[in-house]
């Protein structure tokens, strides 16, 4: 029995540690992306990695999203296990053909021959004042594509374990890192561990209402829950952690218990993944246990504005969550 060493590290460090540990023991794993070399990546995730692994395995690329995404697919198809850092998740749009028409479909189209074990890591979300073209949350696009797995870790512990699972997975995995979470800290074991994709986490147990929240919204929901507790409202928070595969059972069980469901995500509500979760519940046996209409909280249907006040107003905030909960449990 070796003693488990646990330290408090940031989300950013947890992601870096997961990659570094894997690269130390698996030669096939390498990382490529724009400015991930000496610059350390736009958010500093790969800082120090080029010094340890060299420019062959930490490949600084030109600004060519289509080429580097397609390059990752080709490398994965031929025995490598690439990690692609896409500088902002908004730029996934430029790599769309390679991810959607190539990575997601190759194995199936080839009748099960070949595989595409790659991870696309990409910072997402608003809150940094980067405005319309650098602040989007497009995970629902990816979730819509059969053949892609979609991960949205909400804390450092989950980030490290989920990234390990993503790197071990033989399928393309889109790994969303919320920009505002990079500096958040929590206890993370030093050794490698894996959190299976498709396993939700109950971030808070409660009996009055189920809130399914993703990424940054997990934190906002936890904050709201603390406030609501003072008023005797007991919130259960489910963090799906991966939206593809989705742990439907955990959500269904929770809703059966509480009879109420709110889904919170930063992505635009219209066509957002909240609709999928709501529909899944409506179709499940949990329907018979619903005692309030399902609520979805999501971004307004506008591009992310630059002005800080407007930027906050465009996505759900703690008071919005509190209000939604009160509305939903009014008939307790």
């Amino acid at each position, binding site marked *: 029995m070796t003693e488990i060493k646990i330290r408090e590290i940031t989300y950013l460090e947890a992601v870096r540690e997961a990659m570094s540990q894997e690269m130390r023991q698996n030669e096939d794993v390498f990382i490529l992306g724009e400015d991930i070399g000496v610059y350390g990546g736009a958010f500093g995730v790969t800082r120090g990695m080029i010094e340890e692994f060299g420019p062959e395995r930490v490949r600084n690329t030109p600004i060519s999203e289509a080429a580097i995404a397609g390059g990752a697919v080709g490398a994965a198809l031929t025995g490598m296990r690439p990690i692609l850092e896409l500088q902002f998740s908004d730029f996934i749009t430029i790599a769309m053909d390679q991810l959607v028409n190539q990575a997601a479909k190759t194995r199936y189209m080839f009748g099960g021959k070949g595989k595409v074990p790659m991870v696309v890591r990409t910072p997402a979300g608003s809150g940094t004042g980067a405005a319309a073209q650098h602040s989007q949350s497009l995970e629902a696009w990816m979730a819509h594509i059969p053949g892609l797995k979609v991960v949205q870790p909400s804390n450092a512990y989950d980030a490290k374990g989920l990234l390990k699972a993503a790197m071990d997975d033989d399928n393309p995995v889109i790994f969303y890192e919320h920009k505002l979470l990079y500096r958040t800290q929590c206890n993370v074991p030093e050794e490698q561990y894996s959190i299976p994709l498709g396993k939700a986490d109950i971030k808070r147990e409660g009996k009055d209402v189920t809130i399914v929240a993703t990424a940054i919204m997990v934190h906002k929901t936890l904050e709201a829950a603390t406030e609501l507790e003072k008023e005797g409202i007991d919130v259960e928070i489910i963090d799906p952690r991966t939206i593809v595969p989705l742990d439907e059972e955990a959500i269904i069980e929770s809703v059966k218990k509480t*009879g109420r469901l709110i889904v919170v995500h930063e992505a635009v509500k219209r066509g957002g993944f909240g609709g999928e979760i709501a529909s899944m519940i409506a179709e499940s046996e949990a*329907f*018979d*246990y*619903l*005692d*309030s209409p399902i609520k979805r909280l999501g971004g307004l249907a506008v591009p992310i504005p630059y002005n800080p006040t407007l930027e906050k107003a465009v996505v759900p905030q703690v008071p919005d969550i509190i209000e939604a909960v009160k509305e939903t449990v009014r*008939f*307790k």
Partner: protein
Amino acid sequence: MAKEIFMPKLSSTMETGTLLEWFKEEGDTVEIGEPLFEILTDKINIEVEAYDDGILLKRYFDTDDQVPVNHVIGYIGQANEQVPAESPGESGESNESNEQALQEETVAEEAERPLVAVSVISGEKPRATPAARRMAKTNQVELTAIAGSGPNGRVHVKDVNEYVNEDQAHSKITPLANKIAKHENVDITTISGSGLNGKIVKQDISAAIQEKSTKAPASSQKRRKIGGMRKVISDRMSQSAFTAPHVTLTSEIDTTKVKELRVQLLPIVEKQTGMRLSYTEVIIKAVGLVLSRFPAVNASFINDEIIYNDAVHIGLAVAVPDGLMVPVLKDVNQKGLADLTMEAKEIGKRAREQKLLPDQLKGSTFTISNLGMYAIDAFTPIINQPETAILGVGRMLEKPVVIKGEIEVRPMMTLSLSFDHRVIDGAPAAEFLTELKRVLENPFELLV
């Protein structure tokens, strides 16, 4: 849009109708006004005509199915139109007054317990959360009975809980039914109510009592599930017998003068109407006359209220194959014997042919049951609710009677008057029968 075919409500008391026969198959073309199906209501068969042109798309019910009024029983529409696989229930096209009439009847049975009634707009489904629906189903309560605390009266689990947790006896059984049940040691938990919102009403208790007391004969070889008219009769008879305390008075009448009167009037009436005057019409006329002098006997007892009827409408029990019908002669005391003869023959014929109109079955204030064609002298007829009394007429038989110290042979007939002791007592009933005897023994008064 396919059009609903629904069970028509043909009288204010009609709650269900029995489907007897469809005249059309699914897929047949139907023209507006064409007879579409036949139903049996309280005591009548009636053909229902189509209200729409089109194809008969769907029939949800078949022969002997009992269907609540306004319930959708089928659809007429254009070929290939989609209709539900099962009847959607209450017709969306029902009107409010029917709905209210239905509710009033049962609401009147309610005690003073304040019930937060929800205003359910006819045809609008109650709003409730899925969980509330599930709970209501489990507890066998109707959502329409529950006042929802949510927006637009939406019912939540909390509301169902509160409703269920109220005194069960109060919320699911009328006070009267509860009283009878206690008195008769009936276990109400085993009874499913037939009243509004599944409430147990007195007739459910009566039925339960009857069920307890009837044991099917051990060697019974043939069994038949009763349906249609038989079911209606059985329900109504037991309801009357078990709710109204019956007392039967009998009295022998010397019909010598009635016979003479009839002989003299026969050709006159026949000339006028082409029909033969029978004793029945004479008795009807006499009863009508006497009833107008005894309003208490011409009363209806509805919801603990005695209603003294101005009009005298006399029901006439008519035997029909596998049953009994009571067509009604209206305003008897305003009609002469010729008219009565015509009408009585007419409704008798219609009854036997099962062609009575709903209106010919409604509104009787008193009933006459004549078993004179059999070897029956006296019997104890069951009151046709909500009337106060019924007159049983036995056979006419020549008997030795003592008149002024002399033994004479006279045509005698026994009248049996069953009355509802809740409404009147023995003395007035006896006075009524005595007066009737007097009128029949001096029948020329009828011609005045």
